[in-house]
């Protein structure tokens, strides 16, 4: 049986369309942080508003999945749904800031940052478990070389080089992912 986490977006969408509930759970899991990040970091919605938009986006995605012509375009499709729902949420709130200004503001650096963060996250998932672990420990958990050395039982003097090599692989992974994405017409 194919691990759902390894399916491409297109295959995942295909499975969702057959009514596969596990595939749907995987889709939500795969993009929940992305949608939430657009709400909170891109549009700076409150946690409460972000939660409402989050629910609404995935409800709409579920109901309208048949209208998505190209399953590989799932991510930009979800991003568009989320942006529209965020703007609706802002328009219906008491904020005095014009929606057009918010939309223009969000269109600049924040969305690029979110896209980049998710591209990195996806690329990290393509690395070996050992690389994922050591990068997570150093960059996300702020562990020292000494702590990493003790917990993974590897010589402290090799940690920095190991991390550097894993970052090199991450770079290759990112470059590999960017090339087909640019050619897909998204």
């Amino acid at each position, binding site marked *: 049986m194919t691990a759902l986490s390894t399916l491409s977006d297109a295959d995942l969408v295909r499975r969702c369309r057959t009514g596969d509930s596990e595939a749907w759970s995987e889709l939500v899991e795969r993009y929940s942080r992305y949608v939430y990040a657009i709400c909170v970091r891109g549009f700076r919605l409150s946690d409460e508003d972000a939660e409402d938009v989050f629910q609404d986006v995935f409800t709409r995605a579920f109901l309208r999945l048949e209208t998505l012509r190209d399953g590989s375009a799932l991510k930009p499709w979800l991003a568009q749904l989320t942006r529209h729902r965020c703007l609706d949420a802002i328009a219906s709130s008491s904020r005095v800031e014009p929606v057009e200004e918010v939309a223009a503001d969000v269109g600049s650096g924040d969305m690029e940052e979110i896209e980049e963060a998710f591209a990195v996250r996806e690329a990290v998932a393509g690395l070996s478990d050992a690389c994922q672990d050591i990068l997570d420990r150093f960059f996300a958990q702020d562990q*020292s*070389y000494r702590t990493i050395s003790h917990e993974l039982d590897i010589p*402290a003097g090799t940690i*920095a*080089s190991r*991390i*550097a090599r894993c*970052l090199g692989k991450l770079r290759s992974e990112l470059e590999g992912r960017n090339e087909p994405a640019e050619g897909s017409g998204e």
Partner: protein
Amino acid sequence: MVARCSRDSWNESGGVAAQAEAIRDRAVVLAQDDGRVWEEALSALHDARGDESADARRDFRLEQTLQDAAAVPLEIAELGADAAALAALAGERGDGTYRADASAAAALAAGGARAAAHLVQVNLAVRPGDTRLVRARASEQAASEAADRLLTPIR
């Protein structure tokens, strides 16, 4: 900087530069934290000195404040060891033109680790044999050894 300047000759340079940036960012946060916990400890000590009466709750709070004040320099000592190790790596494998800069960075990091370990030691909450002091001294030692790898040949 040494790693960034070594891109043409060292394929790990980008990864080393990224780690150096992460360490620098952590150092900025820890320096601010250190100032904050130091002020809190000073204030707590001042309050305790002004009140000689037995007060278990106050003493507990004072102990906690001093514990916090020891935790931050311990992290700084470990970060200093990491910075020195990274500088040593850059000095040994990076472009030789910048070896002196890497040596200077390693020496500064070792100095920072040593100062931080001293702050852990003098903290009133840390008794001899305390595991935090052992860790701080181990970091000081590791940082010193890393710096010596670059500095010894030119002594």
